[in-house]
């Protein structure tokens, strides 16, 4: 390097702004470049939530479909509903497509007494089951007996038949007629049936009508009591597993883990100030750990008490900027002033007061920007007690609970960086607090919870529960849990 190099280097090493401003970039350059600078990252951790929800929906749908395969639901409330066929499947993978009314009519036909006779003196039903004529005679002569045909099981008890006798003939006729009118297979046989009812022996007609009505009742009973599936009524009866059939178990234990609301939100904005358009406070929850142990005791079928132990760990990073117009109180609360009067000294009891840089001062009415970057961790242990009400919908349980918890919380301040700005210029010495500051408190929170459980098996449940804690809001969140009946 020669003297000329040295000369240039030395002369150009002074980077102080020149008086004529030749080496000061225009503000326009900043304004053009600034929009391309990094922006505050608004981390929204919804992905985990959506994944969890999606998984739950997937699992629920799977079990729901499984349930549907073995327990077809046929609506008999609207016998005229024939527009949409119902797809039914049996365990043997047999698939039958029938309209509701069609199915109903076939069942009626199956159980109705013979409509016409064969040449050998036997009578035949529409599904080719045959019965001896003597059976009919017995039936005609014994109105108190319970009708029973081969291939079918006893339907109702004698007492219930008597009760049915009180039903008026006209209402029963309506049932028969509506059944026939909805039957796509209506033929001369059914016309014959109708003529028999209208013009034949009144006693016999009454039996027919009674049987038809009984059959109708049975169909409803089949549905309500989950008796043999209609789809395979001619096969070996199948019992669809339902919650209602299970024995009542009082004790339930479980384990779960929560997704905290803070984690879901990712940030909390602190409003906007036109003077500071980027004014924001972010609260990031990271490294969250949670474990909930559950014990439920069922007081009755629909009421249960839940207790257990909850453990939460959160790392919170609170950072961002906010601004404040200084009044005397805020100056005393934030800034370590150099006033020597006794009042000011007495005010300076807050160890977090900011020390201003030399030459800087703060006056009432100044708008200062406060930059924060605080890391802290929380460990919370809770013993909850809630009273819950639940409602069963097939395999699913909805529940709502109210209660409280006693908690022990440990706050650890890991680091705290705070500084004051005025017109984008730093005016305070950065306040920095290292790790080690610990505070523990006993807390009491009210808890409201609601959620849904799904009975995967007779004893195992999977569920989602949303819980709100007050006044300590941070454990609020959504929990995924497994429960096991004892």
């Amino acid at each position: 390097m020669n003297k000329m190099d040295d000369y240039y280097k030395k002369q150009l090493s002074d980077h102080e702004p020149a008086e004529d401003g030749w080496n000061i970039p225009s503000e326009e350059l900043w304004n053009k470049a600034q929009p391309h600078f990094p922006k505050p990252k608004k981390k929204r951790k919804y992905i985990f939530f959506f994944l969890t929800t999606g998984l739950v929906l997937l699992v629920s749908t799977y079990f729901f479909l499984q349930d549907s395969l073995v327990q077809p639901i046929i609506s008999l409330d609207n016998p005229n509903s024939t527009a949409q066929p119902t797809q039914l499947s049996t365990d043997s993978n047999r698939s039958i497509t029938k309209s509701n009314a069609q199915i109903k009519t076939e069942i009626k036909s199956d159980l109705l007494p013979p409509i016409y006779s064969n040449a050998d003196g036997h009578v035949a039903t529409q599904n080719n089951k045959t019965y001896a004529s003597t059976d009919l005679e017995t039936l005609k002569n014994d109105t108190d007996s319970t009708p029973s045909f081969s291939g079918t099981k006893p339907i109702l008890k004698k007492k219930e038949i008597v009760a049915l006798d009180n039903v008026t003939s006209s209402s029963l006729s309506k049932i028969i007629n509506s059944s026939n009118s909805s039957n796509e297979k209506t033929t001369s046989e059914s016309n014959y049936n109708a003529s028999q009812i209208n013009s034949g022996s009144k006693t016999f007609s009454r039996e027919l009508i009674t049987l038809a009505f009984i059959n109708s009742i049975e169909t409803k009973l089949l549905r309500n009591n989950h008796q043999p599936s209609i789809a395979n009524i001619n096969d070996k009866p199948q019992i669809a597993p339902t919650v209602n059939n299970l024995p009542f178990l009082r004790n339930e234990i479980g384990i779960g883990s929560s997704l905290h609301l803070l984690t879901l939100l990712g940030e909390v904005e602190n409003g906007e100030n036109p003077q500071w358009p980027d004014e924001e406070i972010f609260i990031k929850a990271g490294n969250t750990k949670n474990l909930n142990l559950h014990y439920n005791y069922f007081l009755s079928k629909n009421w249960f008490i839940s207790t257990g132990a909850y453990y939460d760990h959160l790392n919170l990073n609170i950072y961002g900027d906010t601004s404040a117009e200084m009044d005397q109180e805020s100056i005393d609360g934030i800034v370590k002033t150099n006033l020597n009067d006794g009042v000011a000294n007495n005010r300076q009891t807050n160890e977090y007061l900011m020390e201003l840089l030399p030459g800087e001062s703060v006056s009432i009415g100044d708008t200062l920007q406060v930059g924060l970057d605080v890391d802290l961790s929380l460990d919370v242990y809770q013993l909850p007690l809630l009273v819950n009400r639940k409602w069963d919908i097939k395999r699913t349980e909805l529940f709502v609970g109210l209660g409280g918890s006693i908690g022990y919380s440990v706050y650890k301040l890991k680091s705290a960086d705070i500084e004051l700005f005025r017109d984008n210029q730093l005016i305070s010495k950065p306040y920095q607090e290292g790790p080690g500051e610990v505070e523990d408190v006993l807390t009491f929170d009210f808890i409201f919870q609601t959620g849904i459980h799904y009975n995967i098996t007779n004893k195992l449940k999977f569920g989602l529960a949303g819980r709100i804690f007050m006044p300590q809001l941070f454990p609020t969140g959504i929990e995924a849990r497994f429960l096991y009946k004892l």
Partner: protein
Amino acid sequence: MNELQHIIKKAIQGNTAAQRAIYDQYATRWYMTSLRYGKNKMEAEDIFQEALINIFNRLQSFDHNRGAFTTWSTRVIINSAMTYLKKNNWSNSMAGLEDTYNTEIESETVYDKLSAKELTAHIQRLPLGYRLVFNLYAIEGFTHKEIAEQLDISIGTSKSQLFKARRELQRTLESQLTSSSNE
């Protein structure tokens, strides 16, 4: 964590006040560097603007354990200048450079009367190849090997360009001193 590191951390997080604080602290230095690499103010401002964007978007790659922030940011400006110049008028200016080497001529002239503004103008008036090599060698302290790698030229070419730059600057200086003494 010192104050600068703290502000850099804020700037990385997108804190506008922190970004502005860094800018206010270093803008003059960065701008002066940009002025030396551009052939005029307009080109220098383009370089400066691109350099600003690169600096703030690459702040997270700054490691205070590996060097000072000024060194790092100046390097980013130089790289930005290279990218800009390569994109615009690099090929024409760098083509046909003579791969010859002449011994240096040391000047004993006293130049104390010249200001940084005038010296910067001198550098700006140099042809691109001279300007880059002189800036990198004389001001930034690069070696000829580093310059050769940076500009994708031979070491001999780098030395040649430096010699010619010095000679050109010396002529300019002497001419300016002569004219000012005549006045």
